């Protein structure tokens, strides 16, 4: 067959999605709780760290990257790296001008 049909289709069980939701909700409440701890300088770093973990879980399971073609994983990592380089270059400019 020459066409790329769903030849390697991976069907995720319902309970996997349920479990992922529970994990994501738990991380959300941890983030909200952390704010009340008054960790000052660390709070933003922790909030962003947890958000990144949540985003990775959404990409891997809900957006099916874990089970999809390697091409998509490489592209997503490339785009994230591109964006991180934007941030680093912009701050290198702002902080040292």
């Amino acid at each position, binding site marked *: 067959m020459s066409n790329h049909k769903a030849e390697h289709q991976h069907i995720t069980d319902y309970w996997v*999605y349920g479990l992922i939701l529970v994990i994501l909700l738990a991380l959300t409440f941890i983030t909200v709780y952390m704010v009340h701890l008054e960790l000052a300088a660390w709070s*933003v770093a922790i909030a962003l760290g947890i958000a990144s973990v949540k985003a990775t879980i959404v990409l891997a399971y809900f957006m099916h990257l874990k089970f999809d073609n390697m091409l998509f994983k490489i592209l997503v990592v490339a785009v994230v790296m591109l964006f991180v380089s934007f941030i680093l270059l912009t701050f290198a400019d702002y902080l040292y001008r």
Partner: protein
Amino acid sequence: MSDVAIKHDEHRDDLGAKLGMWLFIFTELLLFGGLFLVYAVYRDIYAEDFHLGALQLNVTLGTLNTVVLLISSMTVAMSITAIQRGNKKLSMQLVLLTVLLACVFLVNKYFEWGAKFEHDLYPGSDLVLQFKRGSIIFFGLYFFMTGLHMFHVVIGMVVLMVMWFKLKNTTINKDDNVLLENGGLYWHLVDLIWIFLFPLLYLVT
């Protein structure tokens, strides 16, 4: 007439369809990425003013909307499992449930923004213009970023309704469901952006 049926080769490329969707998602991520960059720089310059601005936001409503979006992301993901297992009815119900959750999100947003306008907290209002420069920028970014995100929620609802009708007339079915997968990807993108918007706008205090 020959009785040999001519079998037409179906033109279909699921991998290509998904690649197209991902490329579109990347443009969306970089669109919001630019706004996050603006946010990051101004937050660095006006940390104190951003803190004061964020204190005005309703963390409870923000948290509630986060929960609603996360649940809706799960329901749309489950609708794909349902159609892949040939359960058309369940798949349609799950897509409809996702649209309903999107409505809940918008109703929450209505009350949240409504309260802000009632308290004269909107870009260019007499009250906001008296704030310090960083707080004016904070409210500008708050309304623009959540507004642009809300616009994506509305588009996502239209996309999901199209998916619902295509499930109904079996254009999307057990063997051909890449369209629903792509529609689902768009909805997860809306969730993905909110995952970063929520802590950065509501919890930077």
